[in-house]
């Protein structure tokens, strides 16, 4: 009987990168006894969450599978009897709003497998909140940052995605035991040889090496510079900024601040977020340490001392952006 490793993200922890590499190397993985099914419509398994989280993007694919229940049945029937490990990956598994996965029901679905392991990469909530805002802004919405921050603090969610990792554990433990849940500290494993992908491969028990064995894929979504994205979005909201406008903002920031990292948060917002998540992170750490004593959350790196904040953007920067925009022949 097979094991199943369910990688649930969350968003903005290199999930697309992991999914693209695994998808591109399905044949090689299968040689090593690892199964990464191609079920469409993307190189991951988001579609499986349609059982609980409706998404019209999946309708066409689901039709070809005979519906979501048929798809689940196909997955279980195909892979549970095999030797080896099924790897499923989809960050929507962690989404809590507007709808969420029923983990108890999921546990039931996966019960034919010999072993079930859930893998989750815990990222610093401040960086995660920022990344989620960036993703939302990329999709054409432009939530006011102050409100976004306040909601993240009040609810532990940013655009329906948990930034308080305790909420993830709470929902996972509705269906799974804590010792079935592997939590990685995102920053720690990212820095290790083979990075976040190797960490996932290690969980499967395989000795497959990510580097040198699995072919590389084209760069997955690299996040835009946060502050450049914010400045560009301010100019074109509610429309998404064209790349030329983002480039103008990025160049202006580079000219002024060299390669200093940036953030969308003001110093006050960073301080508020830090203060709110200290206790939540400590509680999360203790919960994880019960089964992984070595686990610890990397400290937040977004700091006004090291990062350029919106407060530091003066008229010199925005004038430089304006100058570049003036020189653009066309803006689509």
């Amino acid at each position, binding site marked *: 009987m097979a094991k199943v490793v369910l990688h649930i993200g969350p968003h903005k922890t290199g999930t697309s990168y992991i999914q693209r590499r695994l998808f591109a190397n399905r044949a090689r993985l299968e040689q090593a006894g690892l199964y990464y099914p191609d079920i469409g419509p993307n190189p991951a398994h988001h579609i499986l969450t349609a059982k609980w989280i409706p998404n019209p993007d999946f309708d066409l694919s689901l039709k070809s599978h005979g519906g979501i229940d048929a798809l689940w049945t196909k997955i279980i029937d195909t892979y549970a009897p095999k030797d080896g490990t099924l790897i499923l990956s989809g960050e929507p598994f962690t989404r809590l709003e507007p709808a969420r996965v029923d983990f108890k029901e999921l546990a039931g679905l996966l019960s034919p497998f010999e072993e079930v392991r859930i893998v989750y990469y815990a990222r610093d909530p401040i960086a995660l909140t920022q990344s989620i805002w960036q993703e939302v802004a990329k999709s054409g919405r432009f939530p006011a940052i102050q409100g976004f921050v306040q909601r993240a603090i009040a609810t532990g969610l940013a655009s329906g995605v948990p930034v308080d990792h305790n909420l993830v554990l709470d929902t996972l433990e509705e269906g799974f035991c804590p010792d079935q849940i592997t939590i990685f500290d995102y920053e720690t494993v990212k820095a290790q040889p083979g990075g976040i992908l190797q960490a996932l491969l290690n969980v499967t028990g395989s000795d497959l090496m990510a580097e040198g064995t699995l072919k590389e894929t084209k760069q997955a979504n690299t996040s835009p510079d946060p502050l450049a994205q914010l*400045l560009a979005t*301010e*100019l*074109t909201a509610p429309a998404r900024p064209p790349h030329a*406008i983002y480039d103008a903002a990025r160049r202006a920031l580079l000219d002024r601040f060299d390669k200093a990292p940036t953030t969308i948060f003001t110093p006050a917002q960073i301080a508020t977020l830090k203060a709110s998540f200290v206790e939540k992170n400590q509680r999360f750490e203790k919960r994880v340490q019960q089964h992984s004593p070595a686990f610890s959350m990397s400290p937040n790196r977004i700091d006004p001392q090291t990062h350029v904040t919106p407060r530091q*953007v*003066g*008229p010199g*920067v*925005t*004038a430089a*952006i*304006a*100058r570049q*925009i*003036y*020189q*653009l022949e*066309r*803006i*689509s």
Partner: protein
Amino acid sequence: MPKLVIHMGTHKTATTHIQDTLYKNRRLLRAHGLVYPTLGHERGHHGLASGWIPLGPRYSYKNPERRLQTLNRGILRRMKASDTVFISSEEFSRWNPRHVEMAQLRGLVSDFDEIKVICALRTQSGFIQSVYQQVSDDRNPGNIDAYVETVVERDLVEGLFTNYHRLVRHISDGFDLNEIRLINYERASAQEGGIVGAVLQEAGVQIDPEALQPFDARRHSNVSPEPLATFAANFVAHTHKAPQWLVRAAGKTVIETFGAETRTTLFSKAQIDTLIETYEPKNRALERLIAATQPKFRMTPIDAPLQGRATRDQIDAEFFQALSRKMIKIKQEARG
């Protein structure tokens, strides 16, 4: 013998308005003893300075020296002793790239027994700002800080004196100090009769300025953009002349930022302080120079025209974001 009045500007003290008004009302003025000669096509007499200063075909006279001599003889024959010949060109007060040799000019008009040179002086902050804005109509003057720095260093803006003590010394190379009359531009503009009235009064013409017909009402309806709009448009256009659509967009952004009632200046607070430090002493020196002939003449304080105006330091990051939004919309609409 008739008197000669040479109105030497300076630039940006409504000289065109004065020339246009006197031209328009030359018959009425003639009846009051003032001869405003028609020389060439232009209403100002810039061509009379073209013997020294290259002015281009539009403004130059073929033989400016002869024209000046004609003034001496041709017009004089038809005039009364009590009449005044009034010639006007701000180019007489230019320094660079060439300047009028005042001693030569004085020689060319020596047949007149009485000569008066009239100069309206504008306080340097308003003068430099106004010149900058006019230059911006033709080209981008470049980095504003470097521009002002150069002006202060050389005491010249676009070849025009900003140190009026030097200007008067230059005029006095040809004319006695008691032949030179200075007008405080700001004070004259605010008084009844305005700058035209002040100039005519200095010229000794007894006429109610209200009786003068305006040259062209439309000309006065051309409102200059706010200085900060000019600055912002020039900055964005960088080395290129800022097109009208950009200046208009900058103007709207200035209004949105500061309100329709607030006037602006393109100087920063530090630059205003520099102008005060630089020119107040020079203006005191000027006042001392002419104290014997105009003991009550005072220059307007440098910061007076700038009171209550939003300075360049008050432009914040959002200002240029707002301007960028307008530019994006304009470019998208132009494409669409």
